[in-house]
């Protein structure tokens, strides 16, 4: 605890000057700068992720699993540049995902549950990112990079990419369950209980993705109405909810280990935390 | 439903069970000796009865009856929403196909 004070000469608040000046002030003085760093990284990552996967690569919503070799080869050729550029961007920035997992793990550390929860979450999500994101990017890049490849093999790459990406989405549900359990057991009121239950809803829709391994068409295939679209809407609601909740959590954070204070009631504590004075 | 609180759950259960059994009669009314036949009337009635049951479960079993007005209205809204979505998708499907 002793090494953490930001110094006695801290000015009471950010300067009123330019945006850049305020950012610089927070960088030097804000005691929650590490938490805000993780939060902003998460938000930026999801924005880039959305732009890359929807308009740039057209990998989302996923194309049909029942296409013939020729159609698949056409899809790769048609999206050649978008795929290679978009996925290269993902290769460069996918490391940002660890900030989100670290922040979520931190939320569990702040709860009254064992440290094991947070650590499990970090390792689960780091491993899940390999089939759930990186393999998709590698395999689609390989499919796109050589336009002259045998269409049957291109088709194999296509199946590999989308099955790895969508079929293994279910492994993320275990992380959701860990988080749910931590929230429901928590006595420090770090995150609201309803979000704990929302984690269960998210986990239950992730189960629905599993039939993507079985069906080539219909509502349960990898771009089906149920297995992809409903799942995506639920995931979107869930992600939006936790991004906002983590923001509130950082605002409420008092660096103690008791119950997290409420925002309105505890303005004074918040101000003193902002100024970097130890509790 | 001005029954004494003790028998109220039982009455709810009896009504819900009666609706469930009524389904069997409903189906028999259109089926032709075991061959199932399509019927928009049966489908609509089945959905509406399901909504009635859902509202009963909300109000009585889940005790929304005694809940604040917000939750009462919200669950009623949900029953309407579910009904609109189900009937809407059924009739849209019929109109398109």
């Amino acid at each position, binding site marked *: *605890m002793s*090494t*953490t004070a930001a110094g006695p000469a801290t000015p009471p608040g950010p300067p009123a000057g330019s945006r850049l000046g305020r950012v610089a002030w927070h960088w030097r003085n804000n*005691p*929650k*700068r*590490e*938490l805000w*760093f*993780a939060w902003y990284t998460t938000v930026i990552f999801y924005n880039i992720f959305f732009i890359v996967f929807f308009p740039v690569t057209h990998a989302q919503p996923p194309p049909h699993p029942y296409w013939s070799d020729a159609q698949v080869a056409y899809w790769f050729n048609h999206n050649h540049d978008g795929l*290679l*550029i978009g*996925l*290269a*961007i*993902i*290769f*460069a*920035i*996918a*490391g*940002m*995902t*660890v*900030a989100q*997992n*670290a*922040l979520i*793990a*931190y939320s569990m*550390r*702040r709860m009254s549950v064992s440290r094991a929860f*947070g*650590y499990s979450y*970090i*390792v689960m*999500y*780091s*491993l899940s*990112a*390999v089939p759930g994101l*990186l*393999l998709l*990017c*590698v*395999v689609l*890049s*390989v499919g*796109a*990079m*050589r336009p002259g*490849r*045998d269409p049957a*093999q291109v088709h*194999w*790459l296509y199946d590999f990419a989308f099955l790895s990406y969508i079929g293994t989405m279910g492994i993320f549900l275990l992380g959701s369950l860990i988080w749910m359990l931590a929230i429901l057991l928590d006595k420090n009121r770090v995150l609201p209980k309803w979000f704990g239950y929302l984690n269960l809803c998210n986990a239950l829709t992730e189960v629905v993705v599993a039939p993507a391994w079985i069906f080539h068409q219909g509502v349960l295939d990898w771009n089906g109405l149920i297995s992809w679209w409903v799942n995506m809407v639920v995931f979107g609601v869930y992600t939006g909810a936790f991004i906002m909740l983590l923001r509130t959590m950082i605002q409420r954070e008092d*660096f*103690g*280990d008791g119950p997290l204070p409420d925002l309105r009631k505890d303005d004074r504590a918040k101000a003193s935390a902002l100024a970097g004075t130890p509790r | 439903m001005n029954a004494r609180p003790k028998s109220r759950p039982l009455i709810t259960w009896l009504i819900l069970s009666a609706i469930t059994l009524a389904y069997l009669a409903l189906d028999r009314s259109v089926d032709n000796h075991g061959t199932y036949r399509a019927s928009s009337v049966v489908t609509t009635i089945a959905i509406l009865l399901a909504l009635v049951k859902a509202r009963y479960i909300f109000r009585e079993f889940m005790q929304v009856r005694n809940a604040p007005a917000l939750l009462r209205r919200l669950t009623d809204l949900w029953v309407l929403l579910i009904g609109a979505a189900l009937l809407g998708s059924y009739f849209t499907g019929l109109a398109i196909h």
Partner: protein
Amino acid sequence: MRRADGELILFWTLPVLAVIWASAFLLFPGFTHPMSPSMTAAQVAGFYRDPAHLSRIRYSMILFNWFGVGLIPMLMLLVMQVRRMAHRTPILSYCLLGCTAGGPTVFLIADLFWLLAAFQPGRDPQLTLMFNDLAWMTFTAVVPFLIGQSLIIALAIYLDHPDRPVFRRWVAHFNVVIAAALVPAAFTGLALGGPMAWNGLLPFWVKNMAIAAWIVVMSVALGRNIYRQRADGSDQRAPEEAVAA
């Protein structure tokens, strides 16, 4: 008398790893003259069918598998150093832990494809070409966790206490440079020839030299820290206590 906590033993596994890495790198015939992505299927199949190559490919990739996973103790020592820093939260060490859990897996997947291609070199050359592409693409382009860990170490050092830093400032600057040197490799899929191809200047030579330099420099910095912390007793304080909250 201090208790032996084993950090030094973990640290001195690094030279062994360096030897494994160097021998794997030199042994793999596709690295000493990096294979061009513009090779035809027949040429790639010929590369794997060449009896002089085949055993070298297999042994080098088996070694390479060990290297990737063997690096984890060093990364965990870095996590321990980050935990000693004057941060309010363990967020940055959590980030580094996330990189550690994800990064080495990528090495394993790349090796898997190389070893698959070499296991049955008599396969249809088109298939061998595909495995070869998958291996090179995974090896070259999948740098996100490497970039991530360099930037997180840099950020952690910048946010450390300026008077009693765990790592000196230049280590942070060095990590930023390394991260920048790794970025072009992510874009290697866009070029089948020239300096951006996977045998080109940026994705191959700059990237791999950056990784080698990172391992060497970070080992030296890490070793100095571990010895210094033993000399001044600051290792006795559990890292947990150094972290607020």
